[in-house]
């Protein structure tokens, strides 16, 4: 984990069409199934998520999208009823393996939640929370992390004069950007977002969407969303989850966004996108 990722060099790396095609797989989900209290929730999910792209997960409520997202961050670890099968590889390492240190894993895979959930305390406290957990004590370094993270979510100019004021005083949209900054402060490789705009007004939503598109330059984003317009605006790839009569969710279709929204191959996907399903 390096806190001083040099952004300028990354920016200069112009991505050509060719590079776009040769993007490597960042996360490979292989035959992943999830059980809660021995009831199957997700069955046999397999997909590969490309580096530096936005992959949206869409599907009706209760079809295990959030469950899937949390599994990538191993947030089910604390739950004794949860059990999973299969594998999820992050750069060739199976993150579901017991050998993987879950705390270190979460520094590589950040998460942003449905409702903005800043910690009680100042803006500064929120952004530096993660780095402090891993022993960053130097004030200058913390200041630098705070500023650069807030800049990356375009919040710096709005809050630079009130870093030591409570985060709860910010608006909902600002709070959500703060939560993204908090995740970014750990310099993760992957950022998972669980309906990050569902509690926000349209203008804040657009800001977050713009932000996501900027962020994919440096990170791999996996976003759960209920909003089809949003999915079509931001996604490079789309995965459609659907639970049938048996209440077990499966991956119905996974493809480039341009393909899914224009010419889906599965009739279920087409129905869902047209708003005639779920």
């Amino acid at each position, binding site marked *: 984990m390096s806190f001083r990722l040099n952004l300028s060099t990354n920016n200069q790396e112009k991505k050509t069409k060719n590079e776009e095609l040769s993007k490597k797989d960042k996360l490979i989900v292989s035959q992943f199934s999830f059980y809660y209290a021995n009831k199957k929730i997700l069955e046999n999910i397999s997909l590969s998520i490309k580096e530096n792209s936005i992959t949206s997960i869409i599907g009706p409520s209760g079809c295990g999208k959030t469950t899937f997202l949390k599994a990538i*961050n191993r947030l089910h670890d*604390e739950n004794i009823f949860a059990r999973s099968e299969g594998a999820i590889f992050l750069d060739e390492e199976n993150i579901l393996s017991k050998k993987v240190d879950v705390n*270190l894993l979460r520094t590589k895979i*950040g998460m942003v*939640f449905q409702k903005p*959930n800043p910690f*009680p*305390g100042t803006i500064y406290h929120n952004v530096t929370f993660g780095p402090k957990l891993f022993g960053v004590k130097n004030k200058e370094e913390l200041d630098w992390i705070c500023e650069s993270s807030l800049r990356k979510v375009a919040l710096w100019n709005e809050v630079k004069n009130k870093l030591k004021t409570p985060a709860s005083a910010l608006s909902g949209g600002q709070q959500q950007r703060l*939560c993204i900054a908090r*995740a970014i402060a750990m310099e993760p490789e992957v950022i998972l977002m669980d309906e990050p705009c569902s509690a926000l007004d349209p203008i804040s939503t657009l800001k977050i969407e713009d932000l996501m598109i900027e962020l994919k330059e440096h990170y791999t984003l996996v976003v759960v969303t209920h909003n089809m317009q949003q999915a079509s605006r931001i996604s490079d790839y789309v995965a459609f989850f659907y639970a049938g009569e048996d209440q077990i969710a499966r991956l119905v279709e996974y493809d480039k966004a341009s393909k899914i929204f224009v010419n889906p191959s599965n009739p279920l996907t087409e129905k869902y996108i047209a708003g005639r399903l779920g």
Partner: protein
Amino acid sequence: MEARDLLDPEKLKLKVKRRRKIDKIFSLFALFASLLGLLLLFAFFISLIVKGASWLSLSFLLGTPSRFPEKAGILPALVGSFWLIILTAIFSIPLGIGAAIFLEEYSKKNFIARFIQINISNLAGVPSVVYGILGLAVFVRFLALGRSIIAGSLTMSLLVLPIIIIATQEALKMVPKTIREASFSLGASQWQTVRYAVLPVAFPSILTGIILALARAIGETAPLIAIGALSYVAYVPRSPADPFTVLPVQIYTWVSRPQKEFQDLAAAAIIVLLLLFILLNALVVFLRYQSRKRVR
């Protein structure tokens, strides 16, 4: 047809009128209920002040108990109460918060955890004199601590532990799950999550629970009489190993005497005890305010 009746404007007006009336009656009842408590407390204060105020003096606060009412004072009891409350706090707060954190944050909610939980809830309902008898058997006799402050405060700790545990658990339950998830998602360990994300949010409520528990400890009489806190202590306890008395026991002794002067002395001592309570409560309000300001 009933549906039509409901929509009839005249009947609707009547119904709304009736509802308003019920509303008014209930709010009056609620006002009466809250005033009743206040009135009783006020009456209680007045009678205490009438009886006891004239006995309050520096020599009363700094004197030792005596056969002669005009020479009697409460210093040993006051100091005993302070010792007791401080030691009880030292014993019970870390244990209580620790147990609550274990039950809420660490334990997998299995059979053993539920068994412990039920027992703690039951312990909170055990009459205080039973704790006194337990304290007498375990601390005074078995551990041979004698009728000392330390035995008294250990007994008191047993009494307030379930209260602190339950209050802390409630406070921890109030912390939204999203806060824990946020902390975990940043790679925090369980302990870091508890220490840096959960406890700061729960702290003001935990504090309230603790002070309420300690206020109970400061007012309890029965368990201390059971372990044999003396009613006549003519000197100020110097260490936790000394025999002691506390304000409620002193009050109890005075009240049980036939002479009117001792009744009035008891009233004066009750005023001191109440002032202690008010101080303790003011401390809670202050600390809560401070921590809210810091935490928000």
